[in-house]
């Protein structure tokens, strides 16, 4: 059981990194007032760009940077459409996902099933070599790839940026009340561009992590809905980075459980009272297809609980989310 738990946690932590990157990026974007449903598409271009670059140059760090750059580039399209042209954020974001999917399917065909040497496993610099000895969680937390550690480090950095720096507070201001922010001298357009582009860079990093560290391969549509889970995760986390980390671990754990729970039999002995009721329910709950819906069910649950306990504002959604800003309007 110790081996099973350690393996499960290790798989959960590895699976969570992609959610951390993508959700942090989406939090920044939405905090600035721009919803971006194109996470999946930006992740895909990041994954392919990173993979192709690494395959050609052999340099996975360069690949990672190219992945971030391509994610940013795709986000620029979204920023232009939604901020400058003030078009619908929902439509533009979905278009971005479809565009990213289509482009990477076409340009990715040549890279399918190629092999690369991606990010190697390493222990956390300095202290990691001792900490991996901790039973059960040691390997999971302290032996990983470089992007896994970077993602973790970004959680406090993004938190500090949003809530403790002037720039971060300006981000929140344009997401909550762009008119007032504008009056206070904040350049709403520039700030929103910054947020969307940062979101794109993070999504690109999520994709590059997927192809360069997690899977070390490129495959058509390999994000397989993880971008959508990240969007759900932002709501789950109520737009807070530290909660996104918790959510990412939970979602990563659910991801890992889907595969690893198949090895364990929780069914009660047929002689046990209530076995006739409990076992079919357990079987349903543990069914892989049902399990794959848990991240979304968890998000719905958080929505319901929060709104019931507080009110809509308590949910934490930026007030000006989805609203294009234009100076002429008053």
């Amino acid at each position, binding site marked *: 059981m110790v081996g099973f738990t350690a393996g499960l946690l290790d798989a959960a932590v590895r699976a969570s990194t992609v959610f951390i990157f993508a959700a942090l990026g989406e939090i920044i974007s939405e905090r600035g007032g721009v919803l971006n449903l194109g996470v999946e598409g930006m992740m895909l271009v990041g994954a392919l760009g990173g993979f192709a670059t690494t395959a050609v140059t052999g340099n996975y760090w360069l690949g990672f940077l190219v992945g971030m750059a391509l994610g940013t580039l795709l986000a620029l399209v979204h920023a232009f459409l939604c901020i400058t042209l003030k078009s619908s954020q929902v439509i533009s974001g979905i278009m971005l996902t479809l565009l990213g999917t289509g482009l990477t*399917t076409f340009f990715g065909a040549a890279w399918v099933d190629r092999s690369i040497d991606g990010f190697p496993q390493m222990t956390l610099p300095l202290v990691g070599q001792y900490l991996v000895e901790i039973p059960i969680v040691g390997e999971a937390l302290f032996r990983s790839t470089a992007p896994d550690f970077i993602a973790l480090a970004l959680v406090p950095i993004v938190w500090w940026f949003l809530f403790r720096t002037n720039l971060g507070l300006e981000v929140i201001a344009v997401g909550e009340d762009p008119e007032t922010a504008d009056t206070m001298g904040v350049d709403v357009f520039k700030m929103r561009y910054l947020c969307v582009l940062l979101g794109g860079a993070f999504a690109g990093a999520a994709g590059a992590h997927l192809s360069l560290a997690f899977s070390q391969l490129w495959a058509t549509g390999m994000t397989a809905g993880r971008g959508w889970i990240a969007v759900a995760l932002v709501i789950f986390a109520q737009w807070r980075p530290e909660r996104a980390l918790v959510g990412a671990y939970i979602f990563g754990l659910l991801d890992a459980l889907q*595969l690893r729970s198949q090895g364990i039999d929780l069914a009660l002995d047929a002689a046990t009272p209530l076995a006739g009721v409990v076992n079919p329910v357990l079987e349903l709950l543990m069914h*892989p297809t049902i399990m794959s819906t848990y991240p979304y069910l968890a998000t719905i649950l958080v929505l319901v609980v929060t709104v019931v306990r507080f009110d809509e504002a308590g949910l934490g959604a930026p007030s000006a989310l989805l609203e294009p800003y234009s100076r002429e309007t008053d």
Partner: protein
Amino acid sequence: MSTGITRRRAIKALGLAGATGLAGCSGSGDAATDEGEDGGSDGSDTVKAAFVYNSEVGDQGWSWAHEQGRQAVAEEYDWLETGHTEAVEPSEAKSVFEQYVQDDYDVVFGNTFGYMDTMVSVAEDSPDTLFEHCSGYETRENMGRYFGRMYQARYLAGIAAGMLTEADTLGYVAALPIAEVVRGINAFTLGARSVNEDVTTKVRWTNTWYDPPKEKEAATALVDEGVDVMAQHQDSAAAVQAAAEADIWATGYDAPMAEQGGDSYVTSPIWHWEEFYGPTLEAIHDGSWEADFYWEGLGDGIVGLSDWGPEVPEDVKSSVDDARSAIESGDTDVWADSKFADADDETLFQDMSSYVEGVEGSVPE
């Protein structure tokens, strides 16, 4: 062309709506004059064949294997014109099929189970066009179905796995719990147990045909549980790659996966769809085509094994070769020692929903 249409109408009017082998009529009857320029099914010696695939061709998986078959026959027959469409969802299939009918294709092949109902309805509306559906159970007068006894190749791969394993534990990354996949798991396990009765197989379901990161995670989970030979029924090579990284033996599927498997690659059960497409198109060409169910195996060459990995010992290769001859000659029946010994083809094909002895757990409902 106008005469063709007239004749078609006449045939319909006569109640011969099935029009089986209509394309063939042309071969024997009218002289081929237009060399397939706009090659309708009538008045031309050319056969126009359309291939509709459910996924991208480039993925080394299921549709790639079919595309290899299409390319082989397109090269072989100068009277053949082919067209193909990739990544067609079952929900979009109707319009794709109908377009091919409109463009006067003689036969439309569809390579996924999900096309079945759509193909039936288009076939019923288009009696002058022939249809062939892969992996389903419906036929019509102008619609046949086809598949291969991949389980025979799986059985051979299982023999290799059973001889190679030291932990006596095999891993199997499986897509969806349908009869086809369960059949493969069972045959693989029976093959392994035919040479090593202590073997058990652990199965992890990904519930998707294609999600390489997930396939890889499933394989990693199996490695953590101590399997030392990996098998997979997925559309990518991710499980093979995971096995190579963990330095355990791996068998692939659909395509040779030697590149991903590295030194510990064993072999892959693979398809040779041209062995079906070739004779079928010839039958259409000479007018002898009839709607039936094609389900052949190693003997026909429609399934087989890819080349061996670099480190596979000679005794494994020769044992597999012996078993292969025994299956081809009919001396060995894969299911003989299992609970499916008395099952007929229909049961094997459609109703296999439980594991044989040696597979851990049970098939998810």
